[in-house]
């Protein structure tokens, strides 16, 4: 067969991956446009092309032209233009730059369409066509080759851990036989938030958890998911899954990283076509369990610095369900100085940095624009400290705090918990 055009490759991907799950949702859309008003990228910029369902347009066109009678009629009569390479390049910008897969739009949709998953489909085709943004591609390649998108290769990983062990006075058990729990970090934490690694180690030790790290499955970050490549997503997730199986752990604990949790907890088994022989939980849930069962004790009122609010991360809260644990912890730490943003929990506004967006330099402007919604929300709540359970959100917050000159303290929940641990006498 002659070499396929970019367009054919993308369209073939859409057609190949169409199942009832996707088709029925594409069929349900009435194009009411309400999803636009739920999208931080649209609301912040007013660009109608950022309407979530519009980001799925190519998938819809491919579906209709290939599978529906009316689509074929429309195409034959010339009502619907064929998809061009130029279209694909345009949609690559819409789908990679201006969507964090936060799925807030699905809640506003009268049909409840899972728009984030459909946009992920759109990315899948663009990836196959080679239209992934170059910096995202570079990070993905780096993760495939070196094991880490941010450069935490074997040597760097060891060096970082050694440094953290010395400076924070913690120990990282490595590939410990008989451990119950495998702890996996994100590359952001390893490279940018070393205090988070130390904090989580302290919490698990204080709670008497029998845990280990693994050299093979050291990083849970998954740029394959961002890219839209099921194949690479699986390849990356497999590193952790292999390590967990080899060590025979009961549980894999994902550190403060959102999309990695999504990939391992809610997608990996389905992509592999087999159930995972261990449980996948987020560190937020572990903290909740340890506090609730009294295995760790926190100093009530330990947080003394103004008001603190909690940012719901899309992959850990709205799409992960861990809503209450962080709130319980913050109530202990800050009492009535813990304030909620409005709206929150399932309805929370996304920070704008997820879905790989923060890794794409050309998306900086729209990413920071989306964050202005968060600024208004937090100012309205009167908080000066923002806690969260996702390091990708935290990176976005720190970048925007710097960019907009905000006088906020940005922190991770684990760090607050570690700082407030009461040593058992």
């Amino acid at each position: 067969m002659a070499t396929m055009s970019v367009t054919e490759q993308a369209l073939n991907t859409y057609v190949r991956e169409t199942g009832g799950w996707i088709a029925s949702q594409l069929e349900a859309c009435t194009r009411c446009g309400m999803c636009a008003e739920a999208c931080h990228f649209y609301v912040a910029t007013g660009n109608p092309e950022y309407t979530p369902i519009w980001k799925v347009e190519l998938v819809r066109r491919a579906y209709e032209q290939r599978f529906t009678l009316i689509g074929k009629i429309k195409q034959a009569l010339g009502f619907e233009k064929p998809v061009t390479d130029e279209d694909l390049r345009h949609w690559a910008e819409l789908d990679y730059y201006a969507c964090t897969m936060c799925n807030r739009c699905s809640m506003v949709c009268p049909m409840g369409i899972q728009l984030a998953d459909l946009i992920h489909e759109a990315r899948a085709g663009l990836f196959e066509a080679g239209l992934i943004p170059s910096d995202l591609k570079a990070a993905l390649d780096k993760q495939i080759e070196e094991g880490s998108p941010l450069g935490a290769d074997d040597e760097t990983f060891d060096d970082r851990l050694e440094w953290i062990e010395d400076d924070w006075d913690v120990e990282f058990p490595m590939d410990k036989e008989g451990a119950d729990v495998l702890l996996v970090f994100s590359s952001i934490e390893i490279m940018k938030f070393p205090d988070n690694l130390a904090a989580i180690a302290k919490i698990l030790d204080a709670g008497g958890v029998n845990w280990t790290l693994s050299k093979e499955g050291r990083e849970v970050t998954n740029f394959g998911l961002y890219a839209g490549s099921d194949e690479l997503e699986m390849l990356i997730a497999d590193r952790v899954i292999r390590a967990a199986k080899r060590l025979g752990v009961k549980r894999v604990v994902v550190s403060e990283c959102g999309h990695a949790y999504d990939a391992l907890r809610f997608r990996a088994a389905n992509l592999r076509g087999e159930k995972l022989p261990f449980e996948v939980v987020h560190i937020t849930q572990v903290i909740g369990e340890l506090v609730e069962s009294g295995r760790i004790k926190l100093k009530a009122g330990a947080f003394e610095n103004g008001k603190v609010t909690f940012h719901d991360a899309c992959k850990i809260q709205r799409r992960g369900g861990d809503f209450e644990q962080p709130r319980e912890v913050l109530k202990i730490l800050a009492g009535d100085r813990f304030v909620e943003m409005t709206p929150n929990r399932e309805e929370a506004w996304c920070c704008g940095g997820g879905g790989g967006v923060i890794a794409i330099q050309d998306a900086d402007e729209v990413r920071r624009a989306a964050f202005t919604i968060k600024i208004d929300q937090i100012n309205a709540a009167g908080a000066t400290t923002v806690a969260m359970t996702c390091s990708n959100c935290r990176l976005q917050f720190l970048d925007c705090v710097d960019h907009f000159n905000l006088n906020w303290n940005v922190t991770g929940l684990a760090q607050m918990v570690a700082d407030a641990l009461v040593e058992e006498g």
Partner: protein
Amino acid sequence: MNPSDLMRLARGPLFYFALLFFIAGMLYRLTRVVGFGWKKDLTKPKKSKIAGSLLAFVKSVIIWPFIPRVEGSLKRNLVAYFAGGLFHLALFLVVFLGAAHMLVWKSLLGFGWPTLPLPVVDWLAAAGIVALLVLFINRLVNPVLRTISHAAEYLNLLFVFLPMLTGFFLTHHLLLPYEAMFALHVLSVDWLLIWIPLSRISHFVFYFFSKAIYGAEFARRGAQP
């Protein structure tokens, strides 16, 4: 052909053809979508997916559109909520609880039911027509809707508008003699029945898929749909 011949044709053979086309067309689309196959979910759900789906339906039928799903979404989508909500409400009430329509259902199903008083149906129809006009204008002027709309979206509104308008004229004996307007009304319904399986007006069927998926997906992930 005089108006009464046309009327007989429209409500006779044409109507039954349109009805069959509608049923066959919708069945085709349903089986097509189901036939794509469904992957089994191998992840461990955080909450019951069935309960999540049921909750999604209850919420969307009873609460929406009277209480917005997401804080701020009412204010941001006033036209869609009010005109859209009113249009659907008026359409369902007039089509199922209008006396003349109930008689059509009775002739098809063999049993009837109590209906709303004519003045109520009349006002509902008028409200539905106005709501549809508002939706049409909104689609023409709203930048988001202009971006995402194709010809089919405007045609959908037009083809639903025609039976509503001719029905309203019919009850008020406006514009044309009764039989001629009756013929136009039934013809527009015949055409609508043919158009539905070819268009996205069919969302009333796929709604049950997407809403069930929505509820199950949120429950699977431990969130409330």
